[in-house]
């Protein structure tokens, strides 16, 4: 279980995360939603240990992230926003490198790569250098790289951003599969149809604070709206904000 309580992070005078709390459990897909600049990425960076929170508490399986960063990182697979591959290395070498950094043995790594090649259909690209890859191909390799060590907690920052339909479907299928395996998946997004399709529960972040957390029907009901998109606008941009008719 991931428990985040009242974390706060500021850079100089700017408060990037003011007060974020949520709980994500095993066997669920948890959506961290919010407009650009709301503090989603900063919150996730604190969760995977690259930023130290100014205050608040981050626990993974009851272990404090800032105090035992490496121990927690072993249980996590992370796809950071805009994270890139090594372009002079092949897809296989990219994935194997992270496997080694996770402390896996070569045989385990090979087995895991073979598995992802099947799941994500990477047969034609696995031994090519990633330099010329399309965005979809890069995403598949990045996912396999993040998940090579079969982590229990999976953090994905904007995973379907700019992907074509087929890759989006592949990613979605993978996330559902991970959920079925009992993993805890947290993913951040600002694309509401993604969220509506996938997430069991969501937290909406606006201006560094979690404004609401709960399952989708609860969120929609509390906003007194009909769709997740309307509820999101209601919570993220404030009461009374409506999407203009001509943009629907």
């Amino acid at each position: 279980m991931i428990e985040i309580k009242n974390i706060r992070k500021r850079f100089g005078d700017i408060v990037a995360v003011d007060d974020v709390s949520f709980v994500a459990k095993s066997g669920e897909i948890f959506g961290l939603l919010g407009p650009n600049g709301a503090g989603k990425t900063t919150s996730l960076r604190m969760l995977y240990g690259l930023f130290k929170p100014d205050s608040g508490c981050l626990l993974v399986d009851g272990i404090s992230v800032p105090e035992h960063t490496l121990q927690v990182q072993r249980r996590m697979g992370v796809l950071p926003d805009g994270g890139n591959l090594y372009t002079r290395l092949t897809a296989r070498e990219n994935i194997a490198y992270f496997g080694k950094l996770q402390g896996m043995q070569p045989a385990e790594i090979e087995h895991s790569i073979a598995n992802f090649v099947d799941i994500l259909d990477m047969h034609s690209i696995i031994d090519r250098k990633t330099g010329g890859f399309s965005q979809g191909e890069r995403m598949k390799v990045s996912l396999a790289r993040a998940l090579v060590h079969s982590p229990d907690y999976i953090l994905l920052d904007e995973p379907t951003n700019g992907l074509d339909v087929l890759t989006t479907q592949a990613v979605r299928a993978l996330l559902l599969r991970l959920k079925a395996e009992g993993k805890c998946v947290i993913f951040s997004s600002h694309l509401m149809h993604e969220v509506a399709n996938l997430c069991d529960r969501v937290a909406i972040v606006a201006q560094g604070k979690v404004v609401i957390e709960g399952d989708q029907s609860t969120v929609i009901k509390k906003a007194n709206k009909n769709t997740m998109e309307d509820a999101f606008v209601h919570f993220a941009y404030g009461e009374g904000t409506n999407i203009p008719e001509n943009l629907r």
Partner: protein
Amino acid sequence: MFYQYIAILNKELLDAMRDFKSLATALFMPIFFALFSLGSMHFIVSMQQSNDQIILPVQGIENAKPLVDWLTEAGITVIAASGNPEEKILNKTYDVILIIPENFPENFRQQRPATVDLLSDHSSSKTQGKVRKVRQLVNQWSTKIGSIRLLTRNISPAIARPAVINDINVSTDQQVAAKILASVPMFTLLIVFASGIGMASDMTAGERERKSLEPLLINPVPYTYVFFGKWSAAVLVTFCITLFGIGLQILSINVAPLEELGLRLAMGWSQFALIMFIVIPVIFLASALQLLVSLFARSFKDAQSYNSLIVLLPVIPGLYLTFSSGSAEYWQMLVPILGPTALIVDVIGGEPIAIQHAIIAGGTSLVITTLLVFLGILLLKRERTIFG
């Protein structure tokens, strides 16, 4: 944990080997320097040879056979001169002409001063070396014959030589050669500082700019290991390129026709090993400094610019030592880069180096390296370093 360090080291080496452009740039410098050394030495030798190889046109060879034989023995190519000698000098067909007049044998036999004419253009400084050489040889022959004549009269030839100049050249062959090769130590350290630039910038500032640093650091690897892995990779690559560079330098020194200058340079395996021993601590220092600067830089381009400035560091002690004389001194060993440069100057000059000197110079480099590594790890831990 050690396994992770090896994984980072291997990955960085693989990445560097596939970066053909950076690798080619790094290899260019040693090749260029070796060719430069070889070329400049060939140039000096060919200059010297053009002075040595004297072709002397002689008019009236048959009038003084023994003198002509004496000149030929001294390595001068004697040819028969024809036409108007003065004209030939003025129109620069010949630099110098020796004329042995027809009355020479008669005067010689009568033991009267027998005159020979040496024609040259005194306003041309270029030919004066040849003229001096010919004049010296004729004088030597004259002195020799004079001595024989005195001996036949039971008089010691020493009587005719009240004062004698004893020409002593105090510089040993290798010292002269070291002057010619004064640039080699500086080149060696330039290679050390230049060969890792591309790699150090690429592994740090480049990795951040390409957004692959964040995914890397999410892995459960202590930052210390990440730094050491990258640093070791830079050290190894710099070591190999430096080894290659020094090897090429020594090869070019051995191939260069230095013997023809009368210079002997003992540059063999032991000198090669000695130079590497002196240079290895500097490799540690240079790579750590490059990584630190690259981590500090805001972008890949900045990192490369800063590192290009660092390359100029060895030039300062290099130039200082080119203009100063004497062997390596104790205080120099405490100055980073200066100490190793001074030691390499001595190794190439064929002078023995004090092992304490080498150890102190190495120690100085290693102390500074430790400080740089420590700062580098601190810098890597900064959130701003990771995200720019």
